[in-house]
C-alpha cells in the first residue's frame, strides 16, 4: 500500500522510475559478471585438471570415469546393481590367480600320474623278469 501511495504521488513516481531502471541495469551487469566469473572458473578448472590432455592420452578411461561420476551423481552408488557389479569385478580379477592355481594342480596331477605309471611299468617289467 505504501508503495502504491508513493507511486501515485506526482514527485515520487518520477523519482522511482529511474531508480528501477538503475536497479535493472545493476542486475544485468551483476548477472554478466557472474557469467564471466563462472566461465573463467570452469576454464580454470579444466586447465587445472588438464581434461583435454587426459582425454588425448586415455580416451576410454576418461569416458569410463565420466560414466562413473554420472552414476554416483545419479544416486546409484549404494544399490544392488553396484554390489552385483563389484562381485563380478572381484571374480574377474581373481580369475587369473585361480587359473594359475588350477594349472599348477593339473600339472602336478599329470606328473604324479606319469611317475606312478612309470614306476608301475618298471615294477611290472621287474616282476615279469623275476
Amino acid at each position, binding site marked *: 500500500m505504501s508503495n502504491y501511495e508513493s507511486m501515485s504521488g506526482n514527485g515520487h513516481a518520477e523519482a522511482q522510475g529511474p531508480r528501477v531502471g538503475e536497479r535493472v541495469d545493476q542486475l544485468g551487469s551483476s548477472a554478466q559478471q557472474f557469467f564471466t566469473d563462472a566461465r573463467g572458473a570452469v576454464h580454470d578448472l579444466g586447465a587445472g585438471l588438464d*581434461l*583435454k590432455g587426459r*582425454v*588425448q592420452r586415455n*580416451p*576410454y578411461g*576418461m*569416458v*569410463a570415469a*565420466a*560414466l*562413473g*561420476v*554420472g*552414476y*554416483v*551423481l*545419479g*544416486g*546409484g*552408488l549404494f*544399490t*544392488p*546393481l*553396484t554390489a552385483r557389479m563389484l562381485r563380478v569385478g572381484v571374480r574377474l580379477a581373481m580369475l587369473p590367480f585361480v587359473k594359475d592355481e588350477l594349472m599348477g594342480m593339473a600339472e602336478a596331477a599329470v606328473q604324479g600320474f606319469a611317475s606312478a605309471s612309470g614306476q608301475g611299468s618298471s615294477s611290472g617289467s621287474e616282476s615279469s623278469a623275476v
Partner: protein
Amino acid sequence: METNPQQFQDKARELQARMVPQLEEAAQNLSDLNTRAINFIRANPGTCLLGAVAVGFLVGKLASRR
C-alpha cells in the same frame, strides 16, 4: 556313412579355410571401429565426457529406483 579320420581332417581344414578370412575381416572391422571411436573422442572431448556423465546419471537414477 563312415567318416574316416582323413575325411574329418579335410572337412576341418575346409571349415578353417572358410572361417579364417571372415574372422580376419571381422577383426579388421573392429579395429577400424575402435580407431574411429578413439578419434571421435579425441576430437570432441567435452561432448563425449558430458554425454558419458549424462548416461551414467540416467543409469544411476534407474538403479536407485529399483
